[in-house]
């Protein structure tokens, strides 16, 4: 890790922020515990003497239930927000990204009442790990204040009235060194804190596997659905298109047989009609094939197919390619159609005068970036195009990121983890 002076200057402020967050977490968890414990003691104390032991027991349980049902969903949601804030700050400030470990969606996104949500949340390991962090953070975070505390100590020491020999140079030098180390070590302290946070706030191996299974199940059923829909579309297109044309061609030829030798003009007209039908049938088949698997993609692979897309685009599109081989065919096809859709979006919506496409591969991930010089402000929530692309990429664990500030430029970045197949040399 290289430490920039900027980071050293920022570290104390960030330490204070994280310390504050830890205090807030402790206050939250502490107040819940206090409410539960002292609330019951208070109620029981007031009820002392009233009724017998059984009644007191029932009342105590009722009190716990009331306190818990009123406060628990709020407390759990607040704790989850605090934990998520810590995760975000860990990524942004400490450079340690922490993925969310929750298998249970947030309360706003889950079905059922808040009470049942709380019960389910209490059954999740991630919730208790969050609680653990709320107690650990106040112990760990004071160390983040070192970069602030050390200079403060130095300043305090220097500001002491200089009485006789009370400031031996050795002590002063040691203090200066300690201050320097604390300041310089600030970014490292932050990083260590982030890693500590990840150990509790990050997903466990089991949670990771559960999420993975869920993701695979979802994307599998989506891709089965979409390929079934695709097959239906192809069937319909063939039925209404080429098949119908061939039927009409057959009928025209039948009619031609009837008039042959009797009416030459009529025969000529029917012949022209038959030719027209076959040309149209071919054109429809061609369009259909392009939609299924474009021939140039099959012939040449992703890069030339993207280049062919660029040539067909009404905008000038610059293509730069740094692929050393070919991705597996299904990935190639998904990325091709994604780029095709993105370029079509640029043409339709961006108001751009030029666009560019970049394809490269590094560290086991295929990247394709499509950018334009348009007015930006593209909203991924609008329209179905982008979600369609995400669905297309999902079975390959691919992702699409959109950056489109108002005023432009728009850059769409899609990545798919895959290995490249080395170029074949046996073809010629």
């Amino acid at each position: 890790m290289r430490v920039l002076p900027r980071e050293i200057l920022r570290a104390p402020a960030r330490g204070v922020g994280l310390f504050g967050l830890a205090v807030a977490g402790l206050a939250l968890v502490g107040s819940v515990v206090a409410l539960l414990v002292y609330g019951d003691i208070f109620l029981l104390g007031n009820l002392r003497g009233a009724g017998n032991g059984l009644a007191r027991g029932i009342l105590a349980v009722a009190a716990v239930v009331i306190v818990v049902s009123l406060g628990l969903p709020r407390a759990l949601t607040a704790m989850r927000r605090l934990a998520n804030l810590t995760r975000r700050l860990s990524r942004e400030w400490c450079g340690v990204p922490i993925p969310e470990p929750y298998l249970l969606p947030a309360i706003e996104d889950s079905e059922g009442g808040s009470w049942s949500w709380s019960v389910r949340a209490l059954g999740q390991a991630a919730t208790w790990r969050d609680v653990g962090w709320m107690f650990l953070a106040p112990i760990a975070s004071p160390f983040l204040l070192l970069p602030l505390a050390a200079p403060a100590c130095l300043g305090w020491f220097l500001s002491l009235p200089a009485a006789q020999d009370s400031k031996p140079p050795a002590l002063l030098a040691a203090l200066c060194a300690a201050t320097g180390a604390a300041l310089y070590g600030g970014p490292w302290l932050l990083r260590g804190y982030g890693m500590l946070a990840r150990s509790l706030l990050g997903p466990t191996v089991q949670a990771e596997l559960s999420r993975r299974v869920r993701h695979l199940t979802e994307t599998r059923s989506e891709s089965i659905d979409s390929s079934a829909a695709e097959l239906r579309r192809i069937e319909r297109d063939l039925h209404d298109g080429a098949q119908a044309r061939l039927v009409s061609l057959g009928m025209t030829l039948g009619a031609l047989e009837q008039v042959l030798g009797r009416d030459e003009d009529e025969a000529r007209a029917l012949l022209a009609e038959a030719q027209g039908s076959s040309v149209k049938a071919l054109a429809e088949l061609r369009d259909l094939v392009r939609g299924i698997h474009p021939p140039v993609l099959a012939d040449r692979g992703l890069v030339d197919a993207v280049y062919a897309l660029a040539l067909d685009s009404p905008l000038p599109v610059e293509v730069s390619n740094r692929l050393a081989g070919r991705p597996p065919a299904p990935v190639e096809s998904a990325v091709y159609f994604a780029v095709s859709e993105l370029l079509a979006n640029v043409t339709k919506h961006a108001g751009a005068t030029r666009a560019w496409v970049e394809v490269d591969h590094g560290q086991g991930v295929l990247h394709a970036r499509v950018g334009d010089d348009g007015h930006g402000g593209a909203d991924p929530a609008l329209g179905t195009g982008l979600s369609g692309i995400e669905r297309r990429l999902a079975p390959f664990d691919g992702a699409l990121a959109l950056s489109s500030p108002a005023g432009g430029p728009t850059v769409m970045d899609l990545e798919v983890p895959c290995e490249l197949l080395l170029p074949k040399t046996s073809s010629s």
Partner: protein
Amino acid sequence: MRVVIAEDLFLLRDGLTRLLEAHGLEVVRAVDNGPDLVASVIAYKPDVALVDVRLPPTFTDEGIKAALEARKEVPGLPVLVLSQYVEQLYARELLAGGGGGIGYLLKDRVFDGGQFVDAVCRVAGGGTAMDPEVIARLLARNEGAGSLATLSPREREVLSLMAEGRSNAAIAQRLVISERAVAKHSASIFIRLDLQPSDDDNRRVLAVLAYLGR
């Protein structure tokens, strides 16, 4: 006129042979793969080679590669490439070598025997035959570009026929106007697009294609 055909589907190979022979052309050899094509053009020195894009052994763009290789072996060999689909990318690659005698047509164009044989003869004579679909896409791509928008509808028609590789006489016949009118239109097109005028049909076609393909 002597022709070599490379087409892997027997029905189409046979059909092409019959069509060409019916129009008085001589098919000296019909092969079904790329390497054989290159060998035949060296052995027979035909006036023109007809090549399908998808050929064994790769069944990808073997035909384009074979056509370019055949032209390397026999410089200036006129080649007409036939395909089920047309790609600007391939059109560019075929034209990239410069010179004439290049054709790139959809297989559908074979249906109109007369026009097709006309295109074969044009390519054999060192001319160009670009499929209307290639030209339509080139024009669509240049739609927004300034000078193309200033052309009149008739001039655009003339331009696309010119880009396909047709002579003034053929354009006049197609649009049912006089040859002088075509000459006038084409002069105006060349001025609007700021191209070097040329009396040579083929050089004119290449200039237009180069302009559209920028």
